């Protein structure tokens, strides 16, 4: 005999997803990445329990979210953030999440994921975003670490032990040398670099190829593998795709959302304005059609793969998706369109979460777009 899935079982399934992501974080960011995510999760749990007691004591409202749910959301939040320098960041984000859970969520009036709300807040604070154009500013005590563990130091290494200069060789070819012992290599986050260099890339058809060959841009293989700085648990795009497909199989995610998000993100990206020369404006697609097809495809694919588009669409979006089919399509469109437009406008990869925030705000209203049998009576 099987058993129907209870909410606890649903939370356990999400926990499994988070644990797989945590494992990925352990590989590429070592114990620092894992401890940051776990701390966020535990602080979210503690804050949720504490606030729950306060809320129930004051009889403000009933606390329906189980502790496991709070822990899972905390883990997912910790895994979506990059490895940060400040030890208080996981504590702050965990506590912020605990407060957010009492305000928004899929069972609340505002169906915005609390994880997304906290991501937006940290984006506004600017401490976990990777959109600052000057790479030197990454060395400041604030801001995320632009580093990933070397292949011979995965799991056991300390991601903070990275040299000052940025490496250009593919991840697999980097090894720690005795004269310069270090656990990690410093790399620029690919999404940030491509956003910073977008005008140059679209002006010269050879620029993208040159940057990829020279190692200035991280190779697509490394992006798919996950050897890039950025989110702790979702740096491996292959893993995120596999987890997303798994969530769809388990009916926790919806392929309609993902497909519409992909379509709208691509279209929006192509429609973004670009300055070709001084005073000359065009749109991305107009520049791409003048380039070889392979360059156009690589640019579009690289932009979406390198950005947090996949983790937004496949892992975070299902949590606040509307009930109706048409609503899910519009929700997906909003995530893709608003996210890419914000990312393009602010030059910050993490602005992609804005799309999810806006879509979440409208999610409840999108439920109404539901056509049933009664609507089709002949």
């Amino acid at each position: 005999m099987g058993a129907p899935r209870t909410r606890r079982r649903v939370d356990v399934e999400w926990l499994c997803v988070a644990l797989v992501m945590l494992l990925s974080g352990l590989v590429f960011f070592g114990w620092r990445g894992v401890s940051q995510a776990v701390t966020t999760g535990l602080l979210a749990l503690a804050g949720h329990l504490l606030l729950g007691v306060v809320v129930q004591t004051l009889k403000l409202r009933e606390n329906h979210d189980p502790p496991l749910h709070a822990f899972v959301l905390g883990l997912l939040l910790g895994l979506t953030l990059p490895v940060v320098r400040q030890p208080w960041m996981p504590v702050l984000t965990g506590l912020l999440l605990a407060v957010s859970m009492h305000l928004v969520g899929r069972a609340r009036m505002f169906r915005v994921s609390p994880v997304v709300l906290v991501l937006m807040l940290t984006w506004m604070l600017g401490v976990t975003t990777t959109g600052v154009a000057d790479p030197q500013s990454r060395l400041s005590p604030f801001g995320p670490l632009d580093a990933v563990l070397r292949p011979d130091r995965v799991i056991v290494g300390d991601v903070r032990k990275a040299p000052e200069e940025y490496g250009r060789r593919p991840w697999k070819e980097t090894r720690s040398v005795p004269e310069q012992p270090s656990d990690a290599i410093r790399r620029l986050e690919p999404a940030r670099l491509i956003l910073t260099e977008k005008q140059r890339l679209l002006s010269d058809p050879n620029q993208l190829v040159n940057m990829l060959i020279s190692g200035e841009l991280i190779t697509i293989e490394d992006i798919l593998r996950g050897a890039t700085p950025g989110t702790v648990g979702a740096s491996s795009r292959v893993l995120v795709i596999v987890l997303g497909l798994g969530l769809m199989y388990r009916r926790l995610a919806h392929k309609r959302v993902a497909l519409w998000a992909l379509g709208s993100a691509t279209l929006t990206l192509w429609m973004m304005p670009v300055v070709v020369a001084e005073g000359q404006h065009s749109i991305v697609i107009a520049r791409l059609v003048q380039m070889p097809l392979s360059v156009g495809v690589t640019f579009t694919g690289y932009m979406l793969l390198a950005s947090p588009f996949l983790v937004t669409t496949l892992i975070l979006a299902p949590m606040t998706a509307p009930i109706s089919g048409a609503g899910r399509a519009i929700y997906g469109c909003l995530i893709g369109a608003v996210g890419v437009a914000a990312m393009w406008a602010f030059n910050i990869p993490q602005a992609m979460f804005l799309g999810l925030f806006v879509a979440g705000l409208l999610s409840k209203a999108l439920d109404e777009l539901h056509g049933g049998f009664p609507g089709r009576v002949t």
Partner: protein
Amino acid sequence: MDAPAVPGLTGAKRACGIIRGNPVRRARYNAPMAGISGGMEFRAGVPIRVPEPPGTLPARGIRLVSRERPEVIAGQVVRAGQQLFRPGRPGMACYISPLMGIVKRVTPLMEHDGESAWGYELAIEPSGDRAETQMNVAPPAGRKLESWFAAMCQIGPWSDADGGVGLVPQLEMAKERKPKQVILVGLDAYPPCPDRTSLLMSFADDAVLGAVILADLVGAKRTVVLAGRGTGAGARLKPACKNFGAELLLANNVYPSSDPTLVAYHQAGGRLLSRGANPVSEGLLMFGPWTAIRVGRWFTRGRFDLVRPLMMRWPRAGEAMGCVYGFTGQSLASLDPRLGEHLADPASVVLVGNPMTGRRVGPVPRASVDEPVVPEEELLISVMPEVPATPLEPCIACGWCADVCPTRLQPVKLMEAALSRRGDTRLEEPLRWCIDCGLCSHVCPVGLPLTQTLRRAKSDAESAAGRSA
């Protein structure tokens, strides 16, 4: 419906817990069942061999309930086949006594106001040890619908479940409007308990013959036997269908595809039939296997069956269904000692019907006057395993209830509307399309009482409509 245990699910689907929201669009579903969303695929159970009805059965007391005033009084001796309740209006079937006995009591069932009776309960004590299971009454000669209709009305009751309204109301409408198709719905109401498939496989010739007779009577051009694919019923029914000129249609049994609304949707070219509407209005005459078998056996043997088969679904996983025969109105506990034990046990959950839509009966002490009795419309009695109670939580908007709804409703939204606007007639239209399949409650991860609330809202809306009329 009380929280039912969940039946087994197929392979990977079992691990999945919830099945495809859109199963009929997948290629492996055959064309006649394509075109609707929702539904759920359960692991189909193994059909059992249903024996022929025995010649006699131990005589037990029967208890019948009807909206009509009884034709008999307390203390009166009744014989087998005697009319007990007069038909409510011309064109309805009467209620005959299945055995000889004495009317023990006639009890009016009072409305809530305590002033008027909504129905009557009649108890009959048998006068012998055994009772005949068949009645010597020849089927009408000829192929005239009127004469068959009159004869059928005299030997009721007939199941109300056929086509959602019963066979007799459909035949009555067929007198005015000739249906194009006659459909013997052999898809199981609940695939893990293949009650209809078992009957079809055990009485293939009688079932197909019964369907063909009814098609001939109403002048339908097409006789369709709709059976579950992969159950073995196809091979068993093929020769019978070939002999009698019926069309065999095998369809994947996606729950609740056997519901009249969904059968009508597929067979009437996408036209819809709301809950409780007469299928003949869409050119269809629908009935279940036991009705067809009864007609077929009546025609070939010249004797009319007074008993009905009942399948038992036991709580232990993998245990085969049981089958017994009983008279309508006979105590359920008297059918099987095991069932009697479960009915008396407060920890047991016994449902009349399937685990998704069944109505809970018991627990009642043995030989109580409130003992549940053999129903007129159900073929299945489900004894459920114990289910831990789940606390109520708010909706987490997973959308599974809308995904599985076979009539594309948004159950949770309807529930919210029903709770906030109880008795509002504006809810009546969407609620008409709720077929009470129970899937929304089944898949809801927070255990919201969706089916139960919609059912209550429906009855509230009907009452409100009745009052305004």
